[in-house]
């Protein structure tokens, strides 16, 4: 059991933890999400998404305007708890970038941006098994989990991502049950 898990277990058991949850954390989860802040940080979200899925020989998250989809999906499809987690996470990113490099995230080099995202991945890494499920139910998903999920969905379901980074066909017309994998064969975008 690592330190974070140990603390979380104490939190689950302890009455003091429950009290502190019901005060501050509850407010952080239940308050009306600040969508203006979310909308205003499109450029930051674009850079974060590009760190998750960068352009290589094929398009990356920015090329397919993943940031716009991410913002829209978080507003439409997420529950309030995770909406707040994501928005609070953006604020934490801004603060952390300033503390660590003294610059806004969007002004950092790709390597510096990676360092920051890696930090938040570590922070947000969920526990396996039951305590992980309880944590997600109680506290919602971590900022990194939400960012990674919607970046991936936005990218893989985009026209550019599906056609140019993956392989896509709306009307295959025929089914070939076994083919030899050709060099560089990309995965299908849809099942």
């Amino acid at each position, binding site marked *: 059991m690592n330190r974070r898990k140990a603390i979380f277990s104490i939190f689950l058991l302890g009455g003091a933890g429950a009290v502190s949850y019901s005060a501050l954390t509850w407010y952080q989860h239940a308050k009306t999400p600040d969508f203006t802040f979310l909308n205003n940080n499109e450029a930051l979200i674009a850079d974060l998404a590009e*760190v*998750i*899925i*960068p352009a*290589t020989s*094929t398009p*990356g998250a920015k090329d397919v305007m993943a940031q716009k*989809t991410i913002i*829209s*999906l978080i507003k*439409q*499809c*997420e*529950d309030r708890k995770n909406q707040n987690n994501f928005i609070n996470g953006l604020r934490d990113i801004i603060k952390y970038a300033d503390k660590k490099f003294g610059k806004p995230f969007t002004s950092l080099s790709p390597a510096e941006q*990676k360092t920051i*995202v890696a930090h938040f*991945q570590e922070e947000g*890494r*969920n526990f396996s098994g039951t305590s992980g499920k309880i944590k997600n139910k109680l506290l919602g998903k971590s900022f*990194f*989990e939400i960012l*990674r*999920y919607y970046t*991936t*969905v*936005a*990218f*893989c*379901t*985009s*026209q550019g991502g*599906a056609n140019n*980074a*993956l392989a*896509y*066909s*709306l*009307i*295959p*017309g*025929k*089914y*070939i*049950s*076994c*083919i*030899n*994998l050709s060099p560089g*064969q*990309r*995965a*299908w*975008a*849809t*099942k």
Partner: protein
Amino acid sequence: MGQNQQTKLINVIGKAEVEITYDAIVVGSGISGGWAAKELCEKGLRTLLLDRGRNVEHIKDYPTAMMNPWDFNNRLETEAAYRSENPVQSSVSNDTNKHFFVNDKEHPYIAQKPFNWVRGYQVGGRSLTWGRQTYRLSDLDFEANLKDGHGTDWPLRYKDIAPWYDYVESYVGITGQAEGIPHLPDGVFLPPMEMNCIEKNFSGKIKTHYKDRLVINGRAANLSKGWLGRGPCQYRNLCDRGCPFGGYFSSNSATIPSAAATGNLSLRPHSIVSQVIYDEQTGKAKGVIVVDELTKETFEYHAKVIFLNASTVATASILLQSVSKTFPNGLGNSSGQVGLNLMDHHSGAGASGEHEQFKDTYYSGRRPTGIYVPRFRNINGQTGKQEFVRGYAYQAHGERREWKDTLMITGDGFGESYKNLLTTPGPWTMWMGYWGECLPNAANAVTLDHTQKDNWGMPMVKIDFSFGKNEQLMRQDAIESAAEMLSVGGFKNIKTFDYNFPGGTTVHEMGTARMGLDPKTSVLNKFNQMHDVKNVFITDGSCMPSGGCQNPSLTYMALTARACDYAVTVLKNNNL
């Protein structure tokens, strides 16, 4: 759809005629009602087909069918508001097909224990969104109740229904392969949709290792070649949006156009049947009372013969609502059996695994069916299991892991290596889920709550259903056996799963107006004719005395065609 149907549709929708007489009325236009309309119309009966929802015309009313993932605002994700407003329907529907499912808020019901009542209130019903798996029952199923004492005996045997399976399959078009398995009879098949590399390998391994088990091609109502002007399948695997190519069977693509082509069909959408009218003088049903879904006005339609195909729970509730002096407890309910013995297959559990080999192979096109492991428990003395009676089958499919599963399975990772993982075919995987038989049990029942009414003044439907000990024991065996078979198949990292679906989630509701030999213990005779009211026939899932473990729609279709043939024969002989 044909011009005839269009013309008739407009006539009937007009409010001028308060009372219209037809030869036949069919209540419900889903998979069995569509067949009843087709058969009755083709046999020359002027038929009124009623559906409680809006009309859905083939091709024209499939708004999402040609949409790409990026054409959906929510990119195939489900809206939070939709999920919270539709806790039941959203368990099986999604952003691409939700227009073919009811709104839970508009259509409430009382579930005394968790039960997902999945409904599609539109012309074509759930035939638009069904799973299309089509397997025949056999005498192993038809004799099961008699042999182990659960429920009451079927009033027919395989030989009685076999020609009708042939008949409906010849029209529907079923992809499949003959295997000569006695308890899963072969049918009239179009070419099979082939197994992929991992499935072929799995099939071979299972055949070598087990004496009692086979892995066969899925049998499905998908057209592997063009059939009667429909299809062929374009391998899009987007069936539940409605298929603009007519690549799978639905009432909308097949039976309703066939019925309309005769000139004998009148289709009236927005028609909620509140009751079947019983005539005390003649001892027969006179017609039905319809409440217009939109205007809430009441209409009466009369006919010589009435087919109830509203779907299991709805048919039971119509019967229970149809009270008269002779039938104070519901039409044709002298046995007290109407509403009892509700069944649903249990599913949503099994195992999955990964395979390390065949990394240089893939597939092209999206096959709309999978592979199937026919029932192997309690077939004969050698395959008997002490713990439970009856059995289950598996549906399975092999595939290479693709981006969505990679996203879900890997909790972290980002950057170039993660992108590579998403965009190249992952390891071969196999998913195996079981579909198990549910014993008939009178405690699983549909009743009415007269103190609560829905938006159309109908008493609220109350469903009291739970799976029993036999189902639970079978489930355990199915989970363990799936893991074992995957291990035999050479799979690694095998994980069992159990989604804990409540009843109803398989969307195979059956029972509630069972067929039987004895009018004291059953509602329908061997031709799906009410024992008590001879001109009423019920051929949807409610007629089933037991459910087998096979997907049931094919059997409803065969029973419907058979019942129509009988009904028209006796009608012509003036015996109805």
